[in-house]
C-alpha cells in the first residue's frame, strides 16, 4: 500500500509495462495499443482544458485533423524529416487554436462547447470539400513513411512494432511536457480559473488571454497526436475532424476521470477495450458504449481511474 501511494510508483510501472507490452501481446493488440496511446495524448491535451481550465472544447478534432493533414501534405511533397513533421504539425495546430481560441474563450460552459463545435464543423467541411488539397472524403494517403536514423541504423516504421515504439516515445515526451505545464505556475493559474475565473480577474489575471494560451497549448499537443495518427494510419481523412471524433476525448476523459492527470489516458484504454469486446458481439458498438457509459458515470463520479485513485489515497490517510 505504501508503495502504491508513492507518486512516482504508478507512472514508473506504467512506463515499464508499456515498454514491454509489445513483446507479450499480438501484433494486432500492439496496433490497438498504439492507437490507445495516440488517443490518450489527445485526451490528456483535451483535459488540459476540461479538467484544469474548466473549458469543455467540442472541437478538438479540428486540431487533430490539422496535424494529420499537415503531415500527409508534407510527406506527399517529399518532406521526410520526422521531427520537422512533428514540429510543423504542432505549430500549425497551435496557430489555428490561437485563432479559434481568440473567438471562443469569451464564452463559457455550453456556449463555449457550442462555438468550438461550430469551428470543428467548419474545419471538417473544408477538409471534406476542398478536393484539390485534401482529397475530399477519400482523404490523403501517405505512401512513404519517414524513417529515423538512430545511432547509425536506419529505422523504418512500416513494421507495427517500430511504429509502436515511435508512438510510445513521442507520446511519452508529449505527456511529460503536459505534466510539466500542469504543475507550472501557469498550471496553477489554470486551476484557479477553473475554480473561479472572476477571482483570477480580481487578483490581476487577464482571463481571456490566459484561456487563449491554454487553448493554443491544448491545440498544439492535439495536433501532435494528429501527426502521429496520420503516420500510424498512413492516411489523413476528414473523419479526424468530424464532430464524432471530437467527442472521443470528451468521453475518454469522463470515463477515466478529469481530475487526475493520467485519467484520460486510462479512459482511452477503457474506451478501446470496450470497443474490442463489444465488437465481438455486435456491429452497433456506439449503442452499447452508451449503455456502458451510463453506469460508469453514475458509479465512478470522478471517472474510473479518479475514483479508484481516491480510494487508494484515502485508505492510506486513515
Amino acid at each position, binding site marked *: 500500500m505504501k508503495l502504491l501511494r508513492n507518486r512516482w510508483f504508478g507512472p514508473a510501472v506504467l512506463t515499464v509495462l508499456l515498454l514491454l507490452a509489445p513483446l507479450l501481446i499480438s501484433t494486432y493488440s500492439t496496433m490497438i495499443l498504439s492507437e490507445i496511446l495516440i488517443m490518450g495524448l489527445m485526451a490528456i491535451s483535451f483535459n488540459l482544458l476540461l479538467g484544469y481550465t474548466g473549458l469543455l472544447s467540442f472541437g478538438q478534432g479540428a486540431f487533430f485533423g490539422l496535424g494529420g493533414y499537415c503531415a500527409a501534405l508534407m510527406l506527399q511533397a517529399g518532406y521526410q524529416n520526422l521531427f520537422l513533421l512533428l514540429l510543423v504539425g504542432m505549430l500549425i495546430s497551435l496557430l489555428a487554436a490561437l485563432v479559434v481560441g481568440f473567438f471562443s474563450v469569451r464564452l463559457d460552459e455550453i456556449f463555449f462547447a457550442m462555438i468550438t463545435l461550430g469551428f470543428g464543423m467548419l474545419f471538417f467541411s473544408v477538409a471534406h470539400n476542398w478536393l484539390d488539397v485534401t482529397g475530399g472524403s477519400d482523404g490523403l494517403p501517405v505512401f512513404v513513411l519517414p524513417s529515423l536514423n538512430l545511432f547509425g541504423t536506419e529505422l523504418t516504421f512500416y513494421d507495427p512494432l517500430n511504429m509502436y515504439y515511435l508512438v510510445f516515445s513521442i507520446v511519452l515526451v508529449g505527456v511529460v511536457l503536459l505534466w*510539466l*505545464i500542469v*504543475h*507550472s*505556475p*501557469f*498550471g*496553477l*493559474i489554470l*486551476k*484557479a480559473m*477553473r*475554480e*473561479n475565473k*472572476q*477571482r*483570477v*480577474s*480580481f*487578483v*490581476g*489575471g*487577464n*482571463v481571456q488571454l*490566459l484561456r487563449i*494560451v491554454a487553448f493554443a*497549448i491544448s491545440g498544439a499537443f492535439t495536433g501532435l497526436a494528429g501527426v502521429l495518427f496520420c503516420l500510424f494510419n498512413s492516411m489523413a481523412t476528414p473523419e479526424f475532424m468530424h464532430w464524432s471524433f471530437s467527442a472521443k476525448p470528451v468521453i475518454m476523459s469522463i470515463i477515466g476521470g478529469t481530475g487526475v492527470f493520467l485519467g484520460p489516458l486510462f479512459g482511452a484504454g477503457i474506451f478501446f477495450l470496450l470497443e474490442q469486446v463489444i465488437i465481438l458481439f455486435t456491429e452497433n458498438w456506439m449503442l452499447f458504449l452508451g449503455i456502458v457509459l451510463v453506469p460508469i458515470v453514475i458509479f465512478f463520479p470522478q471517472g474510473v481511474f479518479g475514483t479508484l485513485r481516491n480510494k487508494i489515497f484515502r485508505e492510506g490517510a486513515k
Partner: protein
Amino acid sequence: MSDVLRIENLGHSYGKFKVIEDISLSIGKGEMSALIGPNGAGKTTFYNAISGHFPPTKGKVFLNGEEITGLTSHKVVDKGMCRSFQITNIFSELTVLENVIAPLIIQRGKHFKIYGNIFKDKQIVDSAMQTLEQVGLSDRADQVVANLAYGDKRLVEMAIVLARKPSVVLLDEPTAGMNPEETENMIALIKKLATGSGTTFFITEHDMKVVFSLAEKIYVLHQGHLLAQGSPEQIRSNEQVQEAYLGRKVHA
C-alpha cells in the same frame, strides 16, 4: 493631491434604474473609512463600478492620482486596488497556500511561465506565508479551502486580497454571514491590519456597530446619494442621518 482614492460625481444605472448618483469623495493614504447604508442602498454597485466589475455610467475614478475609470478588473488590480466580495469569492478546490500564491504569481508576471515549481520559489512562498500569518491561517496552509469553516473561508479571501500588498483594499461587508464571535475577530483583524500599515482600507457595512468601532471616517449612502460624511462622532450627531435611518438606535 495626496489622495489615494478620489471619486468624482460617480453614478450608475441598471437600464433606467439609477442606483447611485453623484457620489464624490476622496480618501487619504492609510485612512480607514467605511461606506454605510441599509441593504439595497447601492454599496455593492458602487464597489463594482469603481473596481472594474463594470464601468460606471457616469463620473470618474482616480487611484493614486491616475484615472482608472472604466478599466477592467485585472487592470485595476495592477494599479494597486484589490477587493473582497460580499459573497465569498475564493478558489474552493485549491489549498489555502495556493489561494494566496495565485495572486503573487500574477503580480510577479509568472502566470505565463509553463515550467518550474512555484513552491520552490522562496520569495513567493515566504510572501504568501507572511500574508497567511497576518490573517491567522498559516497553520492551515496545506488544507483544501472547501473543507474550512465559513469564517475561515472569509479569512482566505482576506489573504487573497492582501497578498499583492495593494495600496487600497476594498472590503464589501467583510462580516456578512458571520456569527458574533467571528464578527468580533474580523473587526479585530481589520483594525490590526489597518494600523500603521500605510494601506488604505475602505469597507462597506450595513451593521452600524461594526462601522463605529472601526472607521475613522464614515460615508453614509442613502437612496443612492451620499447623505453625509465625517468622523464617527459627526455622523452620530448628524441630524439628517438620524432622521434618515440611524434614528432610534443612536438616541437609545
